[in-house]
């Protein structure tokens, strides 16, 4: 071993409370996720089966009915962004289990005993879910291309779609992390995850427009962040797509909800190991 260093203890470590440290911790949590995905990408493939079924089976059959008023686009085109939003939701909503897993492994204890800001740990996790969701986005774009959906490939629209996917996945995965912090065990979490997913999906404009919903459901849909995610994707993904709420409103609703969820979850985070 090299000679002892009497005061090698505090040498030049970055201040953990700064914005730079926040970004560094967030990025390093995402980097871990990327290394794992690179080593074992099989999950991305199996994950793509479900959206493919929704698009190719459900979309095809329902499109034939011509029963859903979808404005100036056909049903399949209407459905595509909805299914992307659904994939984002499904990936994100069970993401909280990873924190229960890391708690049981002891990884989380070590992270919480480090000077990393808790909100950075939460946001890092949330954006890791976003990375997985982006992979889904690519698969859905490929399917949509094959089905001749009129996709908007303008650079601004594509950047917008990437942002929408990251934002949506971060939002629902943070929600999921929050639930995990409250319920604490795998079994309870899986139960609650199942209960949450379908209502969020059906009480949104993912597979039918809000206009045909009964009044009570319309109200619920307006309170559902997934509705704004779908609206954002539908506006940006489809050529000539128009927004029901305005892109600005969609982005604002999603960002503010995400911010609130990150703050609440960062507060709750340490409680999962108690």
């Amino acid at each position: 071993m090299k000679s002892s260093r009497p005061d090698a203890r505090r040498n030049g470590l970055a201040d953990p409370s700064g914005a730079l440290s926040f970004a560094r911790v967030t990025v390093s949590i995402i980097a871990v996720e990327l290394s794992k995905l690179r080593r074992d990408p099989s999950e991305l493939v199996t994950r793509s089966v479900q959206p493919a079924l929704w698009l190719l089976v459900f979309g095809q059959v329902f499109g034939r009915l011509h029963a859903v008023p979808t404005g100036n686009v056909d049903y399949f085109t209407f459905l595509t962004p909805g299914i992307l939003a659904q994939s984002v939701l499904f990936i994100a909503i069970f993401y909280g289990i990873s924190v229960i897993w890391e708690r049981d492994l002891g990884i989380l204890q070590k992270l919480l005993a480090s000077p990393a800001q808790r909100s950075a740990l939460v946001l890092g996790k949330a954006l890791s879910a976003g990375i997985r969701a982006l992979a889904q986005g690519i698969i859905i774009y490929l399917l949509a291309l094959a089905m001749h959906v009129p996709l908007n490939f303008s650079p601004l629209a594509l950047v917008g779609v990437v942002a929408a996917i990251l934002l949506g996945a971060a939002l629902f995965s943070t929600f999921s992390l929050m639930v995990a912090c409250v319920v604490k065990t795998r079994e309870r979490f899986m139960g609650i995850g199942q209960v949450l997913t379908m209502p969020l999906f059906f009480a949104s404009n993912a597979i039918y427009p809000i206009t045909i919903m009964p009044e009570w459901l319309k109200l619920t849909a307006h309170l559902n962040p997934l509705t704004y995610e779908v609206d954002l994707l539908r506006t940006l993904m489809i050529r000539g797509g128009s927004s029901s709420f305005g892109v600005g409103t969609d982005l604002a609703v999603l960002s503010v909800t995400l911010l609130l969820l990150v703050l609440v979850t960062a507060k709750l985070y340490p409680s999962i190991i108690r």
Partner: protein
Amino acid sequence: MNDRNEPAIVTRELTKSYGRTLAVDRLSIEVPAGSIFGLLGPNGAGKSTVIRMLTTILPPSSGTALVAGHSITDDPVGVRKCMGYVSQMLSADGALTGYENLLLFARIYGVPKRERRSRIDEALGFMGLTEVAGNVVSSYSGGMIRRLEIAQTILHHPSVVFLDEPTIGLDPVARRHVWDKLRELRDSYRTTIFLTTHDMEEADELCDRIAIMQSGRMAVSGEPLELKKLAGTDSLDEVFIHFAGESGEKSATYREIIQTRRTAQRLG
């Protein structure tokens, strides 16, 4: 930085209660800087609760403690900056390589970019893991994983390292290897090491001072030799039974037992 002669850890009436049960009852201990301190006691005596309070992941119900001069209640971030923590469970990420595990913690602790490589190489070399740094951790032996976990906690050159049952489930050779590394850490970096253990041999051979806890209270503390004299025996096992009695066993929670067994199983 705190003075050389100041104790590295001081607890003052440190207390944790869950409802009506007192897990830790007004514990007051001092750990000299640059020493290895062992906290002993039967299952459920409150050892892990003490370590979780000192590492700031569990707030005390009353009382406080200073770790490297920082208060765990008033300045938890200050404590986190200058200590490292190896939990009882296997906390290295099996899906990553040894190097990646270290890189994550170098970043989290804010080791500057230009120093990351050299600090990681230093920690790998110190723990004897240089050759396997590029392998995925799930291919490591139990002893290698433990050494990697210790490597993770020394990247930022902490003045205090906490280890919860550091050699549980390891075979005798791996166990001795970990002991050697902990001694080296004390001798070459003057790191203070605070560990919990059930293993009387570990306490006897490794620790400069020990404290025995029983039902949340401190039963006795001192150098191993002192305690043996006090109990009138030359076996630390006898010392343990003398001071801790045999009644603590029932209070370990189901979850704690599962975790201990799971760790032992994964290491073995």
